């Protein structure tokens, strides 16, 4: 394959290896140890890593390349989920038609919203996408109840037509499959004190993640991607070069909307239900945060950001007061209570507060996200080593 450069191939390969070995890598602690709560190698969470990775990669194609900050991407995620669930209800439990519909519907929906929102740029654009997302939420939550089942959310039932599916005789709700391969199938491997889980659903998601990542590399390196970056740095010059930027930004918007649709479809494929809360502004904010946390405009950053946030969300949400008291029980009671009280704000249900603070800290101190942080550390390290070398050299010359 010489469609992508060697360096990009390496990155892709790196992501592929991580994705393949995730059940091992994310499960470093023995099942019975106290640290097992920091493991992340179970199907449900790994699926989320991959799905949110896709979402952030797609968002980055819009925000990272063009600089258009959308606050409405959760709407496309939600639309993708609803479409998939409808496919499960009407057609069959196979995820392929569901995913296809998710991507198409999200694409059309983003075409519509993008067409209107992209009439303006900058802050205006952000406000408009936010408003559209809230409108979509209102539509899903109440206005279009026949389509979305309102507050309860859309679910599959035994009475659904499912015209392509064989008659269900078991009396149980059917499960999502890929041509018979059940998404929930998990193969557990016991190695000593460790318990590794290999889940079909996760690997399907991982394959889609790799495809999404590969496509994003192609887009980044293409003339189209270059034009998008040009949009970000100077739209005027593009105009004076004879280029109407609208089709470019709209294409980027739709592509990233389709990524979000795919993510939404996968979400429903792993767990066939869809609810309006998936479309709320907090969800959109989370997508933005993942991307900037990892590093806007970088290839790898968004995936890292998504993994980082989903991992800590999982860990932090599990830390309730009992756990905290357990950790700090060795302290004098008064001190213990104070510390637990403070930490309580940030953990368990307080995860959103941590998220908000992280959001601010990243924007204030590290606008380039983790990727920038890593390269800063790398530079610092090199410079220090350089200094050391210089020093040792000067000492050797002095010794001579």
């Amino acid at each position, binding site marked *: 394959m010489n*469609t992508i450069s060697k360096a990009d191939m390496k990155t892709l390969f790196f992501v592929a290896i991580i994705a393949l070995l995730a059940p091992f890598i994310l499960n470093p602690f023995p099942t019975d140890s106290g640290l097992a709560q920091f493991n992340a190698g179970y199907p449900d969470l790994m699926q989320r890593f991959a799905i949110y990775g896709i979402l952030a990669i797609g968002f980055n194609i819009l925000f990272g390349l063009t600089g258009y900050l959308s606050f409405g991407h959760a709407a496309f995620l939600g639309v993708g989920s609803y479409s998939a669930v409808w496919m499960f209800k009407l057609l069959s439990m196979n995820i392929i038609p569901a995913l296809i519909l998710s991507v198409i519907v999200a694409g059309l929906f983003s075409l519509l919203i993008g067409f209107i929102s992209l009439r303006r740029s900058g802050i205006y654009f952000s406000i408009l996408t936010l408003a559209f997302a809230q409108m979509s939420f209102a539509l899903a939550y109440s206005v279009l109840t026949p389509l979305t089942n309102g507050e309860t959310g859309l679910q599959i039932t035994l009475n659904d037509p499912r015209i392509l599916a064989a008659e269900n005789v078991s009396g149980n709700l059917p499960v999502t499959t890929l041509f018979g391969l059940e998404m929930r199938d998990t193969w557990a491997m016991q190695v000593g004190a460790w318990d590794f889980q290999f889940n079909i659903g996760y690997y399907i998601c991982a394959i889609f993640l790799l495809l999404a990542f590969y496509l994003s590399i192609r887009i980044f390196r*293409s003339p189209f991607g270059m034009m998008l970056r040009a949009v970000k740095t100077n739209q005027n010059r593009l*105009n*004076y070069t004879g280029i109407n930027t609208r089709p470019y930004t709209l294409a980027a918007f739709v592509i990233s909307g389709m990524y979000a649709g795919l993510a939404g479809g996968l979400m429903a494929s792993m767990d066939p239900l869809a609810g309006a809360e998936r479309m709320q502004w907090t969800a959109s904010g989370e997508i933005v945060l993942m991307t900037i946390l990892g590093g806007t405009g970088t290839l790898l950053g968004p995936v890292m950001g998504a993994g980082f946030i989903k991992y800590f969300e999982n860990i932090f949400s599990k830390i309730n007061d009992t756990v905290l008291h357990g950790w700090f029980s060795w302290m004098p009671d008064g001190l213990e209570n104070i510390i637990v009280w403070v930490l309580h704000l940030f953990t368990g249900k307080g995860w959103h507060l941590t998220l908000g603070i992280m959001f601010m800290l990243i924007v204030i101190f590290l606008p380039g996200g983790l990727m920038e942080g890593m390269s800063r550390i790398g530079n610092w390290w090199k410079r220090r080593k350089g200094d050391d070398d210089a020093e040792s050299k000067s000492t050797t010359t002095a010794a001579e």
Partner: protein
Amino acid sequence: MGILEVQNVNKSFGGLKALHNVNLDIEEGKIHAIIGPNGAGKSTLLNCFVGKLTPDTGTVMFDGHSLLGIKPYEINQLGVSRVFQTPEIFSELSVWENTLIPCFAKRDGSFTLNALSRVSDNKDMAEKAEKMLVDVDLINKKDMLASSMSRGDKRRLEMAMCLSQNPKLLLLDEPTAGMARADTESTIELLKSIQKKLKITMAIIEHDMGVVFSLAQKISVLAQGTVIVEDIPENIKGHPKVKEAYLGEAQVEGNMRDD
């Protein structure tokens, strides 16, 4: 009949009349200089050609098309390119990418979703861009970030970007400002050779009279928003009205220095 015809153009900013009944006729294949003291309205005039501003009244015709009421990108598609007074480049991209973008831009502005080919696989574009960078002597800076270059280099990059489009009319707003002497000379040479080779019509705003007189085939003098004289260079040199316009400014400058 010129390739660019400007008739009775007026433009005010609030109470300030920046352009007052400006008439201008730029002949095809010539280099036409527009000179005048600071604040005379030269940049404003060019802004009316590229769609950055719309004149209050008057007409601007290029090659049989009106340039008023159409979008900047449509104007460029007609064949008008411009180098700005403050460089308009893609400052967060490399010099190389800056040059490539106009090469990739279709002349008719049509959009193709070229999302799967690699930039580096488009050999003909690369050749074109490379040639342009050699011409403006920036080839050894091609991997630099555009924003990290000197002002003179930025302007030459912008010139390369405009020239790679093969425009019919090239508008240059103080192209040599901020350049070292040697760069100025080479820029003059570049413009001259392009003019000879490609017969691109140019309108050039310039303060450096050396540049003006070695390049221009015709000169318009703008003062306080009106064209006071339009003639060939030989006749401009000793023209009393021109002296007055510039001397007026010199006096003002002198006063300011006294303060």
